[in-house]
């Protein structure tokens, strides 16, 4: 009788163990999964191409130093000892560039603080560059079409008695998404 009792209890224990094992198999091996959506947007590189050179037009150096300014609206103006005429001013033009990239993206424009125009051993210094875009667009933000015309003007410093001649040089304009 004792043996039967012990046997029965052992069976109960075995049952408990089986239950534990069943729970083990049933739960610890069932993997549960969740899914996150992943998105990324590949945009075209930003490009810039020159469409017109910066031209200060013609002007007359005076007995004292002065400046010639070309605005982003292609208007020439002079200060100090520098003088000009309507005909001389007519040839002045701002530099223009076509900037193309991701619509509505913003970008930074960089250019040198100063640049030099040379005529043989003589030179003019450029500074105070100004930028503008047309048609109500914002400088540094591409319009919905992704293409924008960027206009750049500057100031040329003319010395007293600056030698007459054609002065030329280059300056680099860079654009970068930001």
């Amino acid at each position, binding site marked *: *009788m004792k043996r*039967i*009792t012990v046997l*029965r*209890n052992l069976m*109960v*224990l075995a049952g*408990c*163990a089986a*239950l*534990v094992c069943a*729970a*083990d198999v049933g*739960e*610890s*091996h*069932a*993997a*549960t*999964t*969740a*899914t*996150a*959506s*992943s*998105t*990324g*947007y*590949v*945009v*075209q*590189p*930003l490009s810039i191409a020159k469409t017109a050179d910066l031209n200060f037009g013609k002007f007359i150096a005076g007995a004292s130093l002065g400046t010639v300014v070309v605005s982003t609206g292609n208007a020439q103006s002079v200060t100090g000892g520098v003088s000009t005429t309507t005909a001389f001013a007519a040839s002045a033009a701002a530099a223009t560039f076509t900037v193309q990239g*991701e619509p509505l*993206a*913003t970008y930074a424009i960089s250019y040198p603080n100063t640049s030099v125009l040379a005529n043989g051993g003589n030179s003019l210094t450029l500074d105070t560059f100004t930028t503008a875009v047309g048609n109500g667009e914002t400088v540094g933000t591409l319009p919905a079409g992704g293409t924008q015309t960027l206009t750049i003007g500057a100031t040329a410093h003319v010395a007293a008695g600056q030698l007459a001649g054609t002065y030329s040089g280059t300056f680099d304009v860079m654009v*970068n*998404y*930001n």
Partner: protein
Amino acid sequence: MQVQARGWQRAPPCLFFPYGFKGPGMTQTVAVRPGKGSTRMSGQRRALWRGICVASLLAAQSAWPPLLWSAPLAVVKTQDLLFGKFVGGSGYSGSVTVDPQGGRSSSGGAQLLTSSCTAAGFTITGAAGSAYALSLPTAFTMSAGADQMVVTALTASIPVTGVLPAGGSLTFTVGGTLTVNGTQRNSSYRGNLDVSVK
């Protein structure tokens, strides 16, 4: 044969009390077969075995907490993975990495544009103290039509194996590295990041 069983109720089978329990002053008429009436144990022995049985279950539960009375582990997504906008194609190639903390960096020509980016977010729920094992894919594909990009180096903000903290809820994030090639078409790419927990 009918016998009178004194003070011993044969309750329905019960996990912790496989022989029922003694009701105070209760009597019940039960049908037993001849010669089987004396197979029940003495009170002391019964208590001993009952104790062993309960103790073994408790031991099993403490060793493997989710086994008996905890809810199974579940994992849900709380946040999608966003790589944002970046330059690619037209000869520009590189990679964009979103780390588990949501920070974004790039290499090569994959210049980043100002845009929102996030690491994927998930929450594991289950019983406090339950062991979990997190499984991340080694790679998955994002596509825009026929064009594809691959995300690799998936990393989670928590160890891939561990134990659920008090409260039974564990939140984690996942980041990865997206490879952009020089002929990548300009478009919005989309893919699925599956994470498994067991």
